[in-house]
């Protein structure tokens, strides 16, 4: 048993190191000075410095990392919560009544396979006509479209996993459909909502192309803002600063993932007991 556990630890360490290798290297680079980046490629930082991070936060009046972070947070929130709200009712109908399973379900799920950027021009026209161009709401709405397929898929699966007896019991008690959905199905879906929300938020936070195309000044998200820094000294990529920006940009979704993970693991235990 002891040997088994040591082996497990070894596997964990190996997997964690391999999968996180680029991240570890980036964090190391972020703490290297400009001279060291070109001369010391190892993961060991000889003269750790916070200069790159200071540059990121103070480089110029034009680059405001706080605004980018805020824009991304708002847009990703809208982009992850809205699809859950609009997809929940139909996910129930699809799961319990096979309503729309033949056409609507594959139609929507396959939106995920499309490079949605081909809609850039018509969307741009709609957005500039409705005043959504260069706004966080506008960016959030398109992120909601990006997230809709996975949201629908995960919710349909989650509702199928709920024992139907619970719903039937509520029906016998005379609860009408809306009441039953709100009182019985919704609470049981909470773990799925959390998973879907986390995935959706991360996807929304990390989206680049729509952020580039649909914003110019007011609603620039973090991914696009990060690319501003890469060229901030002109010409080539300044690896140290670029690495620091990437670290800062990845922190919020990482924190969210960590906090939500606690809830996730909690709900998983609840799920096991329930079954």
């Amino acid at each position, binding site marked *: 048993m002891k040997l088994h556990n040591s082996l497990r630890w070894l596997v964990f360490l190996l997997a964690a190191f391999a999968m996180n290798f680029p991240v570890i290297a980036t964090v190391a680079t972020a703490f290297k000075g400009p001279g060291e980046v*070109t001369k010391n490629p190892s993961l060991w930082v000889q003269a750790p410095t916070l200069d790159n991070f200071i540059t990121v936060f103070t480089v110029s009046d034009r680059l405001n990392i*706080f605004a980018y972070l805020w824009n991304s947070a708002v847009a990703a929130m809208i982009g992850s919560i809205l699809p859950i709200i609009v997809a929940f009712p139909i996910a129930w109908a699809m799961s319990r009544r096979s309503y729309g399973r033949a056409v609507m379900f594959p139609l929507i799920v396959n939106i995920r396979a499309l490079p949605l950027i081909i809609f850039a021009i018509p969307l741009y026209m709609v957005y500039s006509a409705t*005043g959504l161009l260069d706004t966080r709401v506008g960016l959030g709405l398109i992120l909601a479209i990006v997230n809709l397929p996975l949201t629908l898929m995960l919710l349909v699966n989650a509702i199928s996993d709920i024992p139907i007896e619970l719903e039937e019991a509520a029906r016998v008690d005379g609860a009408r459909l809306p009441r039953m959905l709100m009182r019985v199905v919704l609470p049981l879906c909470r773990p799925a909502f959390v998973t879907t929300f986390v995935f959706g938020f991360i996807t929304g936070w990390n989206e680049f192309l729509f952020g*580039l195309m649909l914003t*110019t000044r007011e609603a620039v998200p973090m991914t*696009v803002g990060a690319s*501003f820094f890469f060229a*901030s000294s002109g010409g080539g990529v300044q690896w140290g600063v670029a690495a620091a920006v990437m670290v800062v940009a990845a922190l919020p979704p990482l924190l969210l993932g960590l906090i939500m993970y606690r809830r996730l693991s909690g709900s998983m235990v609840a799920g096991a007991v329930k079954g």
Partner: protein
Amino acid sequence: MRVQSYLRAGAAALALLAGPTILQAEVTVLGWPGGPEEAALRAVTDIYNGKAEVAAENKVDLLFTSREGFFDKLQVDLAAGSTAFDVNLIATYSIGKYAPFMEPVILSEEAKKVFGDTVLKTMQYDGQQFGVPTDLSLHFLYYRKDLIDALMADDAAKTKYAEIAQKYLGEALQPKMPEDWTWRDFAANALYFSQSVNPDSPTRYGTVIQMKNLLFNMMVFHSWPRSYGANWMDDAGNVTVDSEAFRTALEMAKMLYDAGATPADSASYEYAEANAAFSSGQVAAMVQWNAAATELMTAQPTTGTFAPPAGPDGRFTHIHGLGLGINKASDNKEGAGAFLAWLSGEEAALAYAKAGGAPGLASETAAKVAADRPDLVQAGDYASNYGFVMNGGTSANALGIYEAQAKEFTGFWAGTQDLDTTMKNITASMTELLKK
């Protein structure tokens, strides 16, 4: 600054549903983000806005987006009729693509004297001036003086050099100073300084060729076939890419790649990677954009620069310009025109140069800033003596042609297709793209 940001973020949250807040009644200029171009544009804008005769509604406001995907975004903005900016960036290779969405500009009377015809031409399409030139890009040969000097002083090394040249190039070339190099000398030097060919070489690679499937890499490559007489098409409009000149240059580059004279990963190298390689001290010489001069000389202080090597047809460097022109959908074309007219004059050009920009100045004008910017004199010299734009290089589909070449040529270098197929494919693509 932080508190201010929070306040701004809070206010923005309140205004969340209020729609976009675009600053109106100014001339908004979309510039090339980051680097000396941005700093220089900021400096001249401050001068312009400080002038008493410039009315409040014609003051210039600068807008910068991302370099990553800049021209893709610009394409969408212009096509959809964006009014987010009145003046926008254009480049020689994309002028034909964006001209339909832009209005010709009227230059100041000094412009001809300040920039000279060669440079003004980089901003012309269909005989009309669509932009005021701001920065000029061309290529330098960067080489390590210390290595060349050591080689020239060592007879045993010279013999070895000649042996290597005989073996790979069929001719016992002698080492020369980079000012006298032809592309064959460049190749011999690259081979001599590569450890895969010459295990005693002080550097791992003799050169680094940027071979990533990327249109800008084609521009760097073009000086090579051009010096063998290459062109995209002849004066009658026939596509002439399938020529001895292109074939020779492509094969020489591949020979160097296969011999290990450039890193095997150069198949994925662009500007940043190539500079990092040279900066590490493991590369003896390379052809790179003039913009890299400061970075490379800081990393390797013994770096020398010259124009790219010569060929049977002479010495050449690919040139292209960045410039600013008027967005057709702009609602303040008058103010935009006024700013651009001023920008094309001597006052602005000199200020732009002093603030770190790289304008292509006629020698008389360059002389006025020679004390501050000696490099501009050199670049201006090279541009007027060796500069070229391929026949068709400003056509509507020029960008597409560079893209197609990038795909086909990198395929040949990586060994996924032979030279005849490459030539057949690129001739077909270019015939299609130049037809329109």
